[in-house]
């Protein structure tokens, strides 16, 4: 039915003698919400950097949006959006300026970013504050805006690195509804989180431990396999054997 948009086979990254990512394999389907979980230091960030064309792998194979992570890193960068808790938008630019800046970076024409930007501002209900500096917005709004801007250029995949850290429970859910909507529109979502209830929101999940993918299934399937009721329990069983 749906075709795969990320295909990873035995992907490895070595730093000296240390294997940060140790021969991982996985597949993400188009329009899927894929949860990429793991303990601190398990290799998630390194793996994500390779998949978004920011870091060359040591060995293995991976195709992202139809491009090879070894040879076509620039094409990958153009086909994806990226957002993290730490790196998102510029605090000393206004909402409008941020939209224009990122629109420009992703190669949108003036007419395109103007149209898309206006639609975005209206949809998030930011009409009255579009001229405000970003630093004057509450954290939750910033994160929602950052996500909207990360998909402004209609990427095939959006990578989200702990997008909801520290955000209040209502805004956190509004954020996830934006994720559902993006997935509904066909954008593939690749997301990391430390909130285990958010793992339940994903269609499928992988869990990394010490550079390897140790669990890989739907949340339902994982709970059944480990005979537990919550993803938190699954995580603890997988990461602390």
């Amino acid at each position: 039915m749906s075709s795969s948009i990320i295909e990873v086979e035995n992907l490895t990254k070595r730093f000296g003698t240390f294997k940060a990512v140790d021969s991982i394999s996985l597949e993400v389907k188009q329009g899927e919400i894929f949860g990429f979980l793991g303990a601190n230091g398990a290799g998630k960030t390194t793996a994500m950097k390779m998949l978004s064309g920011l870091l060359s792998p040591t060995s293995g194979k991976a195709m992202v949006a139809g491009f090879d992570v070894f040879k076509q890193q620039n094409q990958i960068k153009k086909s994806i959006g990226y957002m993290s808790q730490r790196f998102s938008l510029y605090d000393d630019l206004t909402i409008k300026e941020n939209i224009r800046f990122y629109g420009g970076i992703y190669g949108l024409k003036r007419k395109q970013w103007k149209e898309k930007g206006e639609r975005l501002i209206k949809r998030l209900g930011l009409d009255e504050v579009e001229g405000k500096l970003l630093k004057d917005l509450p954290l939750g709004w910033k994160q929602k805006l950052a996500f909207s801007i990360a998909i402004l250029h209609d990427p095939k995949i959006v990578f989200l690195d702990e997008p909801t850290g520290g955000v209040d429970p209502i805004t956190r859910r509004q954020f996830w509804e934006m994720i559902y909507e993006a997935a509904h529109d066909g954008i593939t979502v690749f997301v990391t989180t430390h909130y285990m209830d958010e793992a339940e929101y994903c269609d499928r999940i992988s869990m990394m431990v010490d550079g390897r993918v140790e669990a890989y299934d739907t949340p339902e399937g994982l709970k059944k396999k480990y005979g537990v009721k919550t993803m938190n329990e699954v995580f603890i069983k997988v990461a602390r054997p």
Partner: protein
Amino acid sequence: MENQNAVIVKNLVKTYAHVEALKEISLNVKKGELFGVIGPDGAGKTSLFRIMSSLLLPDSGEVNVLGIDVTRDYASIRKKMGYMPGRFSLYQDLSIEENINLFASIYDTTLEENYENIRYIYSQIEPFRKRRAGALSGGMKQKLALCCALVHSPEILFLDEPTTGVDAVSRSEFWEILQMLKKRGMTILVSTPYMDEASLCDRVALMQDGRILSVDTPAKITTAYAYSLVAIKTNEKYNMLSSLRMLEQATLVYPFGENIHVVSDKGKLTSEELTKYLSAQGMENWEIVEVAPDIEDCFIALMNQHVAA
């Protein structure tokens, strides 16, 4: 019983330029209690913790810790309290051992003298005692920071978001340590943005936007939930959410773990009505699941009340 209280906070106000970080906060923490301050970023948790640990002066209000007015007599309270800031603030280029010795000497004591007090935690990182703090994993850094906060044998601990950004395994290990410290009589105040950690505390204060929404035991907070709550299980979350949003009686509709939660005023929406509505909407493959509200449901309801008020 005033003398049973380890911490008394009264009408605390703190304002920065244009932001009211704390809007007349009051709370008491009993001796030997494990007390959680739970809320998102920007709720005012860090301001509150800094004021309670004498690192920041309030605009107005009173703070009494272990019988000492912290705004007047900060020197005496600092000997009796341990503080762990939210950001890792130890010396990255000193080893584990050197960091602990440094903190011990600041308090005019030694690691040896207090070894028994921190043995349980220190033994977990002792094999790496020569390693630089900067080269430690997140979980180990956290344990080191806790050792440094405990090395002078304080009577009360202030831990500002010790588990933020830490994975679920390290988080549960850290809470095991807190339970152990509590058993030994330590009073502990801990702040966290993770609602699921509430159940691990004796009492919690739910904080949002510079205010305390509720203070009580986790069980009493959930029992006091004033609405009726229904969970719906479905694979079609996006369509289900859109559909439920149009249902007038549903005050709040939000994703919650594997289900969708539907909140309504008590007696305003029966399961039959809900079933009828969803069938009429053409929704298929879903079921209603019995759930009890947890702390996060309560937090959401309280936040919503506040916005509405």
